[in-house]
């Protein structure tokens, strides 16, 4: 029962990441991300209940508050303010991206297969799911040109990390604290960046930066 429920949540997470990969529009991506974060929070609560670990509840609360609510709000604000409602152009055909996504999941499974996983509440499948989410998040980052979309990919990668972390038995609090710190700081810095980039490039599109790069030196 414990495992199957954890499983289910992992599955939802993976599915939403996969959908993220296939989304063209920023608004939809943010919604999917929100869904992901909420699922993650639920998974954290469930694991906390199963392992009776107070730390995991805390993680769940942080995830729910910051990732599930605050971050999507902020993202939507950016979309609204910079008028980014138009469709996101991708650097790669969707079909190809999806195909790659499937391949990545295959690799994740293949890699996790030989590990023994004895005496661990995290199953092989869970680890494979977490790994898949991490890899898919990275894939989203590399297939999008838009900075915001890349950030969302990055955030989804972090969700994968947290998913893996909450499954680890007795993982000291250090890790979760770090993840929270990372999300906070990362977004802080990102926010600063986004503002700066807006200052200088009048757009959130990273292609502006790439142009400078192309001039070479």
């Amino acid at each position: 029962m414990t495992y199957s429920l954890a499983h289910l949540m992992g599955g939802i997470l993976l599915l939403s990441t996969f959908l993220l990969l296939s989304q063209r529009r920023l608004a939809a991506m943010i919604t999917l991300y929100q869904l992901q974060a909420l699922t993650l929070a639920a998974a954290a609560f469930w694991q906390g209940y199963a392992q009776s670990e107070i730390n995991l509840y805390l993680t769940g609360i942080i995830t729910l508050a910051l990732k599930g609510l605050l971050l999507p709000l902020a993202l939507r604000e950016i979309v609204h303010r910079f008028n980014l409602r138009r469709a996101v152009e991708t650097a790669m055909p969707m079909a190809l991206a999806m195909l790659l996504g499937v391949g990545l999941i295959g690799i994740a499974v293949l890699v996790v297969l030989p590990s023994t996983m004895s005496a661990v509440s995290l199953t092989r499948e869970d680890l494979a799911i977490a790994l898949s989410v991490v890899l898919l998040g990275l894939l989203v980052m590399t297939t999008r040109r838009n900075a915001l979309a890349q950030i969302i990919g990055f955030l989804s990668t972090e969700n994968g990390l947290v998913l893996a972390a909450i499954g680890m038995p007795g993982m000291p609090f250090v890790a979760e604290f770090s993840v929270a710190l990372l999300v906070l700081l990362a977004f802080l810095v990102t926010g600063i960046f986004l503002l700066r980039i807006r200052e200088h490039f009048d757009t959130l599109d990273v292609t502006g930066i790439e142009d400078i790069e192309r001039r070479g030196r």
Partner: protein
Amino acid sequence: MRRWLPDDSGPGCYPYPVTNDLALMVGLPGQGVHLHLDALSLLFLCILAPQILASAVAGMRASVTFWVFCAGMVLALAAGDAFTLIFGFELMSAASWLLVLRGDQKPATFYIAIAIFSAACLIPAVFLPASSPVSCSIAFILIALGTGAKAGLAPLHSWLPKAHPAPPAGVSAIMSGGMVKIALYVLIRYSFIILTGAAQPWWGVVLIIAGVASVVIGALRAVLETEMKTMLACSTIEHVGLITVGLGIALRAKAMGDPALTAVALQAALLCAVAHGLFKPLLFLGAGEVKHSTGTTSLNWLGGLMRGQPRLGGLMLLGAAGMAAIPFGPGFAPEFLLLHAVIGAAATGGILARIGFTFVLAALGLGAALALGAAVRLIGIGFLGRPRSLHAASAEDARPGPLFGMGLLAVLMLPVALLPGQVLAALVPVVSQLAPQADMHPLAYTPLPLLLLAFLIATATGFVLHRFGVRGTREVAPWNGGFGRAPAWLPFGDPTTQPSATGFAQPISRAIAKAVLGKNGTDPADAWLIAPIQRLHLRGVRLAERIRRATIRQRLGVVFAALVLFLAALGLAEGG
């Protein structure tokens, strides 16, 4: 001698028990420095010492880099372990690179690339395990590549004519006369002493082929080059080739168990090293003085220097005699021995080897005659005839320092030139060290009786001329094929009516150079080896630039792709 070919306890096996031994305080951490002198290293130290002295006297003594350069060479010779050897070797390269760089920036990069290349060959070669014949052969090939590159052995020679003329003459002198010897010393040290047990006849063949190619290309380019120092550098390639041919024959003969031939070939190589170590620095110092007094070393702008610089000219004549390997000069005895060695080698081995040695002999003859042409051209165009420029006309005799250095070398040349048998006797310990079973015979070339003969003839002829002939001479305007006198404002005649260095070499250039050298006289090594490598490098650079210009997303993509690749490899390795 410690760890010339380190076993698995090489510089490995840390942690070492650290003692208070002073030797362990400096050098490779935990290993220290080991020095060792034997007959071979002493011989090369003896070759090196007069050059250093002469160059120091000639004006290099104030340069710190120069002394570092010399220290590197001495350290390489005195090294008792591989680290010290290569440290000294590379210190020598690095210091000379700085000196080349200060002289001329263009060839410096090529020069240091070759120097690092030789280190990149030597270090692995030194540490290859001596267990199997294959690894010994690979070690030998690497040693030959590494030292050959540093010594200017074909096909890795094309840096030498560019780099050697660049620094001040005193440094060029030691680079040509000493530094290439250090490389050959390492070659001898490894092929004759350290790898001796595994030596195979074909090792010698490799050296012979490289040496013969060097002789032909070096001598040919020496005839064609118009810059005096470049020409001397080309001649260095030729002499390195001669030494290497001798070493190759000795190595082959030693592996085939032919004691007499081994001895002759080794004597030829070592004596050639000794002789070249004397006359080539002399010539370079002289070229430096020519540069100092006229502002150029281009033969096409010189001429008639013998008038203004009789002492310099006389010393240069002696050096050129050595370079040309004519009898009574220091270069003849080694050439004599070498030709004997080739003829002796042609009497051994299979038919292909014999035919090969016939060609080697022809090539050496070619090289000798070309070297003669180069020496004649150096003296005849540069020091005889009429001045081709005002600078050449107004040149004053060389400064005392360089003249003293050259004189020192010239005096040391005398025993090599006139008493080669005695010099060879002094080399006996070295030859026995390199080939303990070597069977040495006295030298068949004896300059002193020949000189006596010539003296008798000269006396008789002088008597006849003095007794029956008209005495005295009268100075007249030159006949010059009947052309009229040059106008008064051309005190030395019209310079353009005089054959130039290029003109002297034109017949050879037309008849031979086209077959051996590429278009426009480019070195075959440049055309067939260096240029393709440069093209390959350029391709690599362009690829790297394309990678560098990647956008953030592309960079991320590369990272991601690499990660996936590693994971996939991991999955396949573990799952499959």
